[in-house]
């Protein structure tokens, strides 16, 4: 593989379809059922597929101290529902070539089902049962929980699996955005089926959820089917979590996580980012493309192309409803750990030292616009887009004005936004590697805290 994958830089990034066409979000129907459930229906007929998605504002920020509770709940929905056992559901979906999955993040949980359109009548009611009538079978729950704990232990074998959550915890501390979505080994062990049921009944409600269906169907008929299938779901008041902003860090901290047989050092450096609805989010996506979100970005050019220190270096914003983080990340052999860290910081400081020139800015603008359409090409991708827009309270202008926002960015504005928004002082560090060999030098970057990859808790 030539490249370490470059994800676009915002966790929720959208741009316009074309430099030529005035892109509009494809037409869709939005309705609210009597019980308060929001429904989006978007027809797409290129292939005979339908993507169904239910999103609820129930995520790891709602875990309290029971880290992993939202994740275990999201997974438990399909352990038997309505008339079907867990195995019967799995067999039925597989027999029809359907793909089911659930995804839990800090602020929401999504269950999704991709099916052939001819199977709609048979499988949509099953999906509805999964959301509305989970059985929460104790035997299945216990089995899956044990398996999940084993996987959490196995996750610790690979630095890449844990560094993101470790950074979040270091940065956010006890703020709910610091909650590890996957949970801690000890916290997950202690979660009971009763807690899962409580979480489900308090968070999975019609008024706290949206159903999105995109694909090869007829809207008029589907409106009727959906109204029948989901009408029994109740609404109730949902308890909100206090997401008041935390105080910014007043000094640099460094978590050094020991992996005894490490043959390289994996590291992440960062600080305060932006919320998903930040007014400059589009401009920041373009700027971050220049810094670390494409192959010719400054970070990749310096750390990979010019020096051969790493296979890939990048930067990204991780944004949530209220705030977010910004991180630079890469990996290098043990011997060049500090050479790579210093070069990453020096390169990052170009935002302030040299700034962005016109040619680079124009290139990044073209790149961001040119790479947009394939991100919203399939029914599944469009369903995810609508789910994100709903859960973050964004309207269509978010999509439809994207191109205008990209085009309106000039050099002066880009430099002004870069200098005022990217975090410069009191950066936070996580290093995963062989601690004994890198500890002394690591101390000079911030207040150090040592832990072990197998035993540390978020």
């Amino acid at each position, binding site marked *: *593989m030539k490249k370490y994958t470059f994800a676009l830089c915002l966790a929720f990034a959208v741009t316009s379809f074309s430099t030529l066409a005035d892109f509009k979000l494809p037409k869709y129907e939005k309705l609210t059922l009597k019980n308060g459930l929001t429904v989006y229906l978007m027809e797409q007929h290129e*292939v005979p597929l339908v993507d169904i998605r239910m999103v609820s504002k129930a995520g790891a920020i709602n875990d309290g101290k029971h880290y992993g509770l939202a994740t275990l709940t999201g997974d438990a929905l399909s352990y038997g529902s309505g008339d079907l056992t867990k195995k019967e559901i799995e067999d039925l979906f*597989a027999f029809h070539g359907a793909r089911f999955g659930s995804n839990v993040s800090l602020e929401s949980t999504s269950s999704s089902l991709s099916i052939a359109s001819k199977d709609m009548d048979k499988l949509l009611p099953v999906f509805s049962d999964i959301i509305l009538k989970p059985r929460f079978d104790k035997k299945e729950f216990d*089995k899956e929980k044990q398996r999940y704990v084993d996987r959490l232990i196995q996750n610790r074998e690979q630095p890449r699996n844990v560094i993101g959550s470790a950074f979040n915890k270091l940065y956010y501390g006890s703020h709910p955005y610091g909650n590890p979505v996957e949970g801690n080994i000890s916290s997950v062990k202690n979660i009971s089926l009763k807690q899962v049921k409580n979480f489900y009944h308090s968070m999975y409600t019609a008024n706290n959820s949206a159903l999105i269906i995109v694909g090869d169907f007829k809207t008029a008929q589907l409106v009727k089917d959906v109204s029948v299938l989901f009408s029994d779901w109740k609404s109730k008041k949902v308890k909100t979590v206090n997401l008041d902003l935390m105080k910014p860090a007043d000094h640099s901290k460094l978590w050094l996580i020991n992996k005894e047989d490490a043959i390289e050092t994996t590291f992440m450096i960062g600080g305060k980012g932006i919320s998903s609805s930040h007014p400059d989010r589009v401009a920041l996506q373009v700027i971050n493309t220049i810094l670390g979100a494409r192959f010719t970005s400054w970070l990749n050019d310096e750390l990979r192309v010019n020096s*051969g220190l790493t296979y890939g270096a990048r930067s990204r914003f991780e944004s949530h409803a209220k705030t977010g983080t910004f991180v630079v990340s890469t990996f290098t052999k043990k011997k060049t750990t500090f050479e790579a860290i210093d070069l990453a910081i020096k390169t990052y400081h170009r935002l302030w030292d040299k700034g962005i020139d016109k040619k680079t800015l124009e290139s990044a603008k073209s790149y961001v616009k040119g790479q947009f359409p394939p991100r919203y090409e399939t029914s599944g991708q469009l369903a995810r887009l609508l789910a994100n827009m709903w859960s973050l309270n964004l309207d269509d202008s978010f999509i439809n004005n994207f191109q205008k926002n990209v085009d309106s960015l000039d050099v002066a504005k880009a430099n002004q936004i870069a200098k005022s928004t990217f975090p410069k002082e009191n950066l936070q560090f996580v290093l995963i590697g062989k601690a004994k060999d890198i500890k002394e030098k690591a101390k000079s970057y911030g207040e150090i805290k040592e832990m072990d990859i197998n035993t540390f808790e978020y």
Partner: protein
Amino acid sequence: MNKLLAICCCAIISLSASATTQPEDVKSFTLKNGMKILVLEDHSIPNANMYLFWKVGSRNEYPGITGLSHFFEHMMFNGSKKYGPKQFDRVMEAAGGANNAYTSENITAYTDWFPSNALETIFDLEADRIANLAIDKKMVESERGVVTSERTTGLENSNFRMLQEEVKGSAFRAHPYSWGVIGHQSDIDNWSMQDLKQYHKTYYAPNNAVVVIAGDVTVKEVKRLANKYFAPIKAQTKPRKVHTVEPKQIGERRVYVQKPSVSSANILMAFHVPATSHQDYYPLSMLASILGDGRSSRLYRSLVNDKRLATSVFTYMPNSFDPNLFYIYAQASNGVNVAILEKAMITEINLIMSEGVKSKELTKIKNIAQVDLFRTLSTINGKANTLGTYSLFFGSYSKMFDAVSDMSKVTQDDIKRVANEYLVRSNRTVGILDSSEDSKEGDR
């Protein structure tokens, strides 16, 4: 990790009134220099792609230059006559395009994704590096570091990668599938400029490529640009044939790999199977799906769900020009003795050997293949990659549209037969990766 690529690239049935791609939508032509080009118009988004598949992979290497195919994949981005070092990426990104590339045991593929108004720029960039690559000494040295980091981070973050390298080395003692695509570190450190120049001349010849362009383009415009940019590139003598045939394995082989940080054992079984062009391909790929695709598969049900001996399991059979391997991989649950897991895996295989599979299981695999094909056809990248793959490994892109009907010809007896023929002990290599040192008292 590509899991069971075979099931992702399947076929088509009655397509009702939808706009799904039909075989006749694909247009194919060959330039005078032997370069084969496929074009599929799709105007659903204002983007297009170009996938260039070169028939060169680690099977074309030999000891001393292992990993060179993959290294070359990197060097193709490091400068040519018109577009010097760094220019390929800079020009492409400024035009709104992005790219990547991958190398396997059999092929090297380059993938360009771009707004359709950048089509000519992409032709110009690709033609320049195919015809006039300039191998810069300084770039070679920095790229050695990059590839070393890619190798290291793979070993650090993937147990499968570490174990597969050892299993392949044991399963193949003659054929070049023996070494990993990334190559041996000592070869990465030592190949010469001469090796690189020769490799480019031999394998990056237009008569050794299949190019697929899909998206918001017209066949007419693609033909014009192909004639302008690719047709002038000279054909080369056909590369040396890979004639080495792996001697038949006549007894089980075993390897053990120690990785102190693993929390539970990983096990990888590999069985020799024929090339993708062989008539047993579909029975074997369907057997792989029945065993390991998804939560309703036999191995998942038995090992992960019911007996709880493993946390994950999958099967994998790469597309391949020469006879290769059928892999079964499992990760043991915490505290489970790997010997018990191994025995349970063999029990499941034996069950198919003796009892065969159910008719419903065959139907399920065909249904999955069919819906997965629709998923593939829902993106221009899925179309380009899959058409190219079928063209290379199955002899024609049209085989993509025949896959489900080809699967329909496979019987329950066929599955039982291939299980008995290939998934036997004497044809098996077993690799185990675990944390403890491979020593015992009195036997260090």
